[in-house]
């Protein structure tokens, strides 16, 4: 396949970029349900500290997780600029707390470079790649892998049908 053909078959992917501490991240925009300000949540007993609790999203009880705590980036402060991105992943709704949402970026496949093996807070399993946008390095997160990972423990994997 020639280079020209390759360009022809390229698809533009849209990502929502957000900020955690000093770092720029982005995730596939099709997983985003909505973006809203941070509101107080109801604590869940005996949950890890990065799971802030649950809130009522129009009748759905939705867990809110703070990736800053989980991956130790930046300081987990909650103010009027703190943003929650509501995600729709694998038929579930999960909210993630971020320091800010910056932009929607469009990337060609060839603009996405493979993720480094080390050097970022996220395990490379959860990374889709890296991209440069206006001098900044943006880390593309594979949000589906991250949210459904056993590391976050958001989903009951073995106990779903177990005894109640």
């Amino acid at each position: 396949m020639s280079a020209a053909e390759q360009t022809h078959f390229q698809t533009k992917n849209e990502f929502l970029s957000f900020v955690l501490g000093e770092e720029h991240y982005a995730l596939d925009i099709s997983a985003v349900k909505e973006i809203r300000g941070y509101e107080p949540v109801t604590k869940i007993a005996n949950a890890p500290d990065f799971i802030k609790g649950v809130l009522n999203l129009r009748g759905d009880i939705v867990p809110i997780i703070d990736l800053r705590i989980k991956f130790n980036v930046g300081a987990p402060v909650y103010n009027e600029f703190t943003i929650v991105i509501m995600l729709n992943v694998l038929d579930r709704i999960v909210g993630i707390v971020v320091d800010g949402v910056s932009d929607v970026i469009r990337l060609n496949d060839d603009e996405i470079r493979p993720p480094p093996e080390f050097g970022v807070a996220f395990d490379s399993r959860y990374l889709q790649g890296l991209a440069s946008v206006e001098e900044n390095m943006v880390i593309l997160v594979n949000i589906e892998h991250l949210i459904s990972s056993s590391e976050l423990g958001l989903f009951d994997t073995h106990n779903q049908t177990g005894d109640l």
Partner: protein
Amino acid sequence: MSIDIEQFHGVFFEESQEHLDTMEQLLMALNVQSPDHEQLNSIFRAAHSIKGGSGIFGFSALGEVTHVLENLLDKARTGTFHIDTSTVDLLLETVDILKQILDAYRDQDPLPETLIETGKKKLEHVLAGQPAAAQQDSEKPDDDDFGFFDDEDYVSANADTDDFGFFDTETESAQASNAGAEPNNNEFGFFNTQKTNQVEAPRGVSDSDSTAPKGTANSVNNNASHKSSSSIRVNTGKIDALVNQVGELVITQSMLSLIGEQIEGALGEKLQSAIAELQRNTREIQESAMSMRMLPINMTFNRFPRVVRDLASRLAKKVELKIEGGATEIDKCMIEKLVDPLTHLVRNSIDHGIELPDIREQSGKAASGTVILRAEQKGGNIVISIIDDGAGLDRQRILEKASENGLVASHDMPDEDVWPLIFEPGFSTAAQVTDVSGRGVGMDVVKRNIEALGGRIDIESRAGSGSAFYIHLPLTLAIVDGITVAIGDQIFVVPLVNIIESIQPASAQLKRLGSDTLLHIRDQYWPLVAIHELMDVDDAVTDPTEGIVVLLQSGKQQFGILVDNLLGQQQVVIKSLEQHYRKVPGISGATIMGDGKVAMILDADAIAYQCRPAYQEEMLA
């Protein structure tokens, strides 16, 4: 094209299931001595609808069996075949086979081939015995004639399409009606006994051959429209979505009334009266939405005449089943989940309760025993009773079995403490394991199933005069009556069913045992569960004398939880935590409060279970 048709499969399976259920109920209700023509017609129509559908969708095995069944039923309804009890048995068997075939098609499992073959053979065998049976029926010469012609026709009809066979019988009758005035009258007399909306069609058929297809088509249409006017089929997901949305509306409304209270002056008054109106409207909408989830409990009860009939004949007992309050409505989720526990209890009543006819007569009772299956609404609960007039529970045997199993039992225990022993795991007083009893579903499972539905089960029994099981269930699984309590900065909901009472303890009532605190009230020690630790709440009251102790009961466990304050009693809509998160220990679900915040619903059973080892060990030590 095939994809187009597949989307109707679901509807076909559902409808066929309903037709089979109808057939079963009608067969059960059929009076063998003088079968009601309309009933026979309904059975026939149900079979015919299934056959038609299976032809369209290419479910040939289903079509083949229904075809033979239909032939038999057609003869029965035209009076050329005399139905007796053994035929009804065979027909019921066939219905069972059809159900299995239907399930196999639905689940895309291999078809029960041997079952289909034997089922078909049995039917064909009965059909083959037909001419003899018809000739014995020599009282009606006309019928005899018909029987003969019909037979001939069916032979060819079997080879041809099925509808052909159906029309042929009509043609036959048309010819017969030309032959003489006498049979003609008979003919009309017969058709007139059908439902009024069907009279038109058959008349057209007997007038001339050419109108036959039209006439039949009309009657089918009439049937369909008759059904659809009374109810429509709605996906349950849509109803659940509606119930959820209405729940949202209720929350928005209560947020609005909170805001409305803060507005003063004439405008505020106007707003408040409008909000009061809105409140009434939303409540009514909520009730209507909830009522859509409700179905008559007959959906469950209707299977029992069959269960009782089969079981009684197998055990050589005479049992009459009385169903009362079948129109009582209950949450649709419970309808399905009640089947197993109820079946078990009814089977138990017949197997263990009702005595054999001669024994009953010896003890001065009617030879035929009675089992009453009753549903009624009492307040916010549904009570289902299974009452028999049999021998009653065997106190002696239960106590023996209990001590065998190492349970705490003594002979001076009152009856009300003895009966619940049968709910212990591994408890079966059946001396021999038959296929009726000891099928692995013990009374402990019955109790667990009922409790999983948020209900409880009580027993009354008197030796010699029978026993009664009362199942108390909440009206719906979607709403729970609860007390809202504050623990630290969080609000929790405690289900009302678990609450015995709330008290403010004095320090003299508190005893310490190891690391646990016990509360001494009215000669009883109640372990205090440190709920704020369990629920990981900061800033909660830890000194029982400063807070309020809510005494809870779950099964046999009784304990108290310490809360800061009682906030109020309200009905809350239960929301699942598992939908977007996971199960949380000690929490049965969540709900949304008036201000839009989420509150957790405490699961008393799970808390009792979690805490049991700790304080029981302490108490034994």
